[in-house]
């Protein structure tokens, strides 16, 4: 285990103790389970500490190669788009941190791409952190961002009761951006996602940092049952449709599975645009 990992683990344990402290709800709109679990941390120190704990960061070009936006790339229209999307969500959440489910209408629509970049966009803001959770157990992608592709993830958390939450949260080389992979390509029943443990995990994650925005990279709407389960966990749902790939009928049937109150809107992905133009 590397030095960094140890430090991370240590930090995770510290935060884990925090969540056990019961307390009154500190104003604002808070999910019911959040209220049960107690006071949230809004200690700015945690963020600065997190900043200090950043592993080696990736350069803008390296991120670019991986299809992730970077705040320095201001000439890139996508950066602006994700910034606006982030701002929209922050305004909608009235200052609370929220769980956002990203689900594609069908496979290949780029749901993971949107989830990843939305997370990165949240992390642009030095006062916010973001956590990307790979819930697409059938077709995971988040592990590609990690230095160790086989790092423990969600499945390990479910299968191993001993494992601590901090063990599955990994840095990805972007400041204030963490990710939870699925934990390897294994055939895992989706029922895990519907379990109480999953719900507890979500609350834990949410409560850990008040300024942490959690992005769930969900499966495509072909697995309508999974999307339904995940949408229960999320505060908001974004549906991804891709230019020239998604039919109106597919969008219609997918939208019927999601409650209107949670549906934030549709993200139209991969609109053709000539590069070098604004």
């Amino acid at each position, binding site marked *: 285990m590397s030095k960094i990992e140890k430090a991370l683990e240590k930090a995770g344990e510290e935060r884990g103790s925090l969540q056990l402290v019961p307390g009154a709800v500190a104003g604002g709109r808070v999910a019911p389970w959040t209220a049960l679990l107690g006071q949230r941390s809004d200690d700015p120190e945690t963020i600065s500490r997190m900043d200090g704990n950043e592993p080696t960061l990736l350069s803008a070009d390296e991120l670019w*190669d991986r299809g992730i936006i970077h705040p320095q790339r201001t000439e890139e229209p996508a950066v602006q*788009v994700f910034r606006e*999307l982030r701002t929209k969500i922050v305004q909608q959440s009235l200052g609370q941190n929220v769980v956002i489910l990203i689900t594609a209408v069908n496979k290949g629509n780029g749901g993971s791409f949107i989830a990843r970049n939305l997370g990165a966009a949240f992390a642009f803001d030095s006062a916010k952190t973001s956590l990307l959770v790979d819930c697409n157990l059938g077709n995971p992608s988040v592990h590609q961002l990690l230095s160790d592709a086989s790092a423990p993830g969600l499945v390990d958390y479910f299968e191993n009761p001993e494992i601590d939450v901090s063990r599955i949260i990994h840095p990805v080389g972007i400041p204030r951006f963490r990710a939870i992979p699925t934990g390897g390509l294994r055939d895992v029943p989706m029922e895990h996602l519907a379990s109480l443990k999953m719900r507890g995990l979500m609350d834990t994650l949410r409560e850990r940092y008040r300024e942490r925005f959690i992005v769930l990279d969900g499966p495509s709407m072909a697995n309508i049952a999974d999307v339904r389960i995940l949408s229960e966990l999320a505060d908001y749902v974004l549906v991804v449709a891709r230019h020239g790939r*998604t039919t*109106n009928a597919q969008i219609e049937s997918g939208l019927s599975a999601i409650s209107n109150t949670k549906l934030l809107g549709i*993200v139209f992905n*991969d609109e053709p645009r000539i*590069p070098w133009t604004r």
Partner: protein
Amino acid sequence: MEMYPEQIAKALINESFHSRRLFVALFVVVNLVALAVGFGWPKSYMSSTSILVDDKNIIQPLMLGAAVATDIADRGKNAREVIFSRKIMSGVLERGGWMKNNPSAAQQDQLIEQIKRRTTVFNAPGGGKAIINIDYRDNEQVRAYLVTEAFADLFIAEVVAEKKSEILAAFEFIDKQAQGYEHKLTITEDELRQLRASNLGARPGGEVELSARLISLNTRIENTTLELREAEMKHASLDRQVNGEAEVTVLATREGQFRARIAELQARLDTLRLSFHDTHPDIVQLKNQIQDLRAEAGAQRERREKAKPSDRLESDETVVNNPVYQQLRRELSQSQLTIDALKSRIAEAQRLLREEANRSKDLHGGDARLAELTRDYQINRDIYQDLLRRRERARVSMNLDSDSLGLSLKILEPAAPSPPVSGPRFWHFVVGGVALGILLPLGLFYSRMMFDPRVRLANAISQRHGVPVAAIVPHLWKPGDLMGLRKELVMLAAVVAATLALSATLSVVRLLGAL
């Protein structure tokens, strides 16, 4: 789905970029097809001529009323029918050189149909009906010219000939009519002359005179009859008076003388007796004398009584005629004379009256005939004079036409001896190919954008599903992809340039006439 034009344009550009390879492929294919079609397209030469139909030339206003120029404008209107008539088309076949191969009648018909299809007859825009344009298209340069020229020549010849024959026919008709009326007029004149000769009284005013004469005759008869009646009454009265008067006062003659003597003597006697006695000598003498006288008177009466039945006067008697009787007798004979004269005058007047009545009978019959003939004569004369005028006008018109002054068909623009190539040129195909090569993919992309069930426009989603579009994420170009894109774009540009270069080269080569 409502979109603003700039939205459509932007979406189209993006779509074209997205499907750039398809775009270029379509561009190349369309251009190649256009080049191929351009090569295969047959050359055609269009020759054109225009004919001016001048229906208002200088001579017409001058000759207004005196001559009528045949109406060319009407022929201008149906120039198409005239030009495509069998007669002209046969001439065109001849001049166009089709008859050299001795085509059958059916083949000729076919050829004519083909020529008709390649010919356009229309009135030049702006010139109204006055300018007839004939366009003819052929794939042989010389023939295009020959046929067009033939069209113009034959058309004009046909129209002029028709015009001439028309005016000639009109003239002949008018002439025939005029002659007919002249003949009628002569006949009427003859009849009139005969009638006048046979009936002298038949002259204007004869009837009035006759009636005046009849009236005067009637008056005369009446007056004379009245006079006659008067004379007759006078005669009767005289007659009666004459009968009442004695013819002679014969009794007063001898016997009367005696009686007068006797009375005289008696008176003296009576006077003497007053102073003397009967025995006085004077008295006795007187008594003797009276006695003698009485005897004498008796003897005289006796003689007269005897002579009376013989109804002759006793010449020896002293006859004294009655003067009243004489007078009456004279008057009576005078009145008889008057009566006779009047009677003869009446008879004469009546004879005259009868004569005049007969004459008037004749006169009336002649009058009706005369009126009829005169009427005929006048009408015929009017018509004849009118026809004569018309005939002269027709003659002038005919001269006008034969001197070609009224001719108002002119070849305004003769067919060019070497008509330029017409129809789509090769460069048309090249330019059309380029334009279509761009427009066709754009059209395809536009229809794909509109009708593809897959979503290609973000605002279509919100409109259709009622869900807001949270974000429109453009394609993220990674550095490696951009490198590939650059190469691809260079390749595509090269392909487009090559296509354009090929088109341009072929155009130039074709223009120089090498192909």
